[in-house]
């Protein structure tokens, strides 16, 4: 069935991203306006806005299944795109859409359920002889059982929320004595985040690389993969920089892992876009981790190297179209790097930096793509995650992509909030990152300083402060008190005032 109208059940940059492709395909788009972010950028771009004025109950707007379904029904919307996060991997939501004859842009409820439950996912992988890490068969009931398994497979072990994702409800246990505390933390975090406190335990691979494969399937049993993404630059299991391809893979390994990824997809009759995540150890053995049954934050790097619009494919497959691309049609060219620009203060342990973006300006260029959810005067609220934009740079080689990313970061200007730009710059300038010699412990072990600056930067900043102070002294002598305490006046304006005295 042709999709004529689409409700985007998400916000931020992904809502903007989905809207763009949908409009290009001639689909009427609907966005959800919440009281938490009434002036968000995506609301200005969609064709029609559905207002969720007051939070009717405790459930946050983008998690409120019945309210979203109801809105879709009232506006006679054909399809819902869940984006990532929120309801994207909620099998019940997908089922409710099916029941209401609304097309859910994603896989079937059963595929989401099977892959979302890590215990079932691992059983499936085992059945198809995909390499797995040793661990519990299913979730562990209590600390005693966890301790039992941990001593069998040996420390370190990792505790993971069975319903988890995005690093939440995940704890590494180095030794038996800290197991009890970690078990308590993991279960309570899992309970909080996913409403399901069950955790499982598995062998923890030290310093692995995080490699994931983008796969696409349709309802006719066609499956392809679009190569890998390297997402090893992470902090507390949150990805910060991604690239495609990975320097750790050669053609042979890529084929092997790609085949394993498509096999997993086939096993659950997967359709739509999906991601199969693997760990790659130092000896280049790979292990199946999990499958993400949604579009990923880092999908643009794959789009840059493959030239494929993943959202477009998702929509077409949801309409019931057959995948026309064959594996041999997929040619991956060059190298793409994505930097996540989060509203976080790197100098204060990546703590969220709320506030108002007074002004934002993006680098421009043929091979530069910026996926942004904000604009001038956008408010960074505490209600949602801290990502404001993504910078994606494409070049012929990895070296060129790194230097182009570094140059682009210098032209990514934001006033009003602190972001992770200085962090991304530090990674681009790191010797080991440039060499491709890194793994998931890179930030923790290899980066002494988490932000980039030159030796003379502090001096220049001191000059800015002294200049402003001196300028203010001058104006104080001649003008009325400055009730804004100079905060909103740029040194440039003060300078001009001085000259006009």
């Amino acid at each position: 069935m042709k999709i004529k109208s689409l409700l985007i059940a998400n916000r931020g940059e992904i809502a903007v991203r989905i809207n763009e492709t949908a409009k290009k395909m001639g689909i009427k788009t609907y966005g959800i306006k919440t009281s938490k972010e009434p002036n968000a950028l995506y609301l200005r771009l969609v064709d029609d806005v559905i207002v969720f004025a007051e939070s009717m109950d405790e459930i946050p707007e983008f998690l409120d299944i019945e309210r979203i379904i109801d809105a879709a029904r009232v506006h006679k919307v054909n399809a819902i795109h869940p984006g990532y996060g929120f309801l994207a991997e909620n099998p019940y939501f997908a089922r409710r859409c099916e029941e209401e004859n609304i097309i859910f842009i994603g896989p079937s409820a059963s595929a989401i359920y099977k892959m979302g439950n890590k215990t079932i996912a691992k059983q499936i992988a085992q059945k198809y002889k995909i390499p797995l890490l040793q661990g519990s068969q299913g979730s562990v009931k209590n600390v005693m059982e966890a301790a039992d398994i941990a001593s069998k497979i040996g420390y370190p072990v990792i505790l993971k929320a069975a319903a988890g994702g995005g690093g939440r409800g995940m704890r590494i246990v180095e030794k038996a004595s800290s197991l009890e505390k970690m078990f308590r933390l993991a279960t309570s975090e899992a309970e909080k985040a996913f409403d399901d406190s069950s955790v499982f335990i598995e062998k923890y691979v030290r310093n692995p690389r995080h490699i994931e494969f983008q796969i696409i399937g349709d309802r006719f049993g066609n499956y392809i993969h679009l190569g890998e993404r390297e997402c090893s630059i992470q902090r507390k299991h949150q990805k910060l920089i991604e690239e495609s391809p990975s320097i750790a893979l050669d053609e042979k390994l890529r084929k092997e892992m790609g085949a394993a990824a498509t096999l997993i997809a086939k096993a659950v009759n997967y359709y739509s876009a999906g991601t199969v995540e693997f760990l790659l150890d130092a000896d280049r053995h790979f292990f199946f981790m999990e499958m993400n049954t949604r579009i990923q934050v880092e999908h643009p790097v794959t789009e840059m190297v493959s030239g494929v619009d993943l959202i477009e494919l998702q929509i077409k497959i949801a309409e019931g179209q057959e995948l026309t691309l064959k594996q041999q049609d997929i040619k991956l060219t060059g190298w793409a790097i994505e930097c996540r620009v989060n509203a976080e203060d790197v100098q204060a342990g990546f703590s969220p930096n709320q506030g108002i973006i007074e002004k934002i300006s993006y680098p421009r260029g043929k091979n530069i793509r910026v996926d942004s959810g904000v604009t001038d005067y956008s408010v960074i609220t505490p209600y949602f995650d801290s990502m404001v934009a993504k910078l994606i740079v494409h070049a012929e080689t990895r070296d060129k992509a790194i230097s182009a990313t570094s140059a682009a970061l210098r032209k990514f200007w934001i006033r009003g909030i602190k972001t992770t730009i200085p962090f991304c710059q530090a990674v681009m300038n790191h010797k080991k990152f440039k060499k491709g010699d890194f793994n998931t412990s890179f930030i923790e072990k290899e980066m002494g300083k988490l932000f980039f600056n030159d030796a003379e930067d502090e001096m220049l900043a001191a000059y800015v402060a002294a200049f402003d102070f001196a300028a203010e002294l001058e104006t104080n002598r001649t003008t009325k008190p400055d009730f804004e305490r100079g905060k909103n006046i740029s040194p440039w304006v003060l300078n001009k005032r001085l000259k006009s005295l």
Partner: protein
Amino acid sequence: MKLIGKKKVDENEYIAVTPNDSKYVIRNPFSIDLKINGHKKDIKIFENEEGFTFIEFRNKKYLAEITDKTQNKYTVLLNGVSYSFTIESPISYRRRKYLQKYKQANKIEMITAPMPGKIMELLVEESSSVKEGESILILEAMKMQNEIISQVSGKVKKINVKPGDTVTKDDVLMEIER
């Protein structure tokens, strides 16, 4: 030039002091005779048509923003990195040095919230003793549970929060007596 005591004082001299007490002596900030720590520097400040302020130095452009300012205390963001300074005149700098000598070492350590969030669990009680590096409470922020660790060894003097409280950044959570 004025004479104060026996030393010459330059009215066009400003001293930017960093939190760890290193200093930049900036002379003639408005003139081409700008000198920093005695060396001549060619630094320009300008604003582009979009309203961003930049510093130009050795053909490199730096995005600059004053993010906080209270009297003579400044926080400057340069290429996204924060720097804090106290700006002193030569006279106030001398007074500062003098006062520092008599300042008592602070015995109470304030444990502040590193990020906004919700208090999940207290791991210590009032008047219990803590060791440096020990977890003292769990703060949930952005759905992550973070252990807050004591930076000092000592005795818990006061706890200002209880489980379930919502805190903002820099709220004092606990006071620990060294």
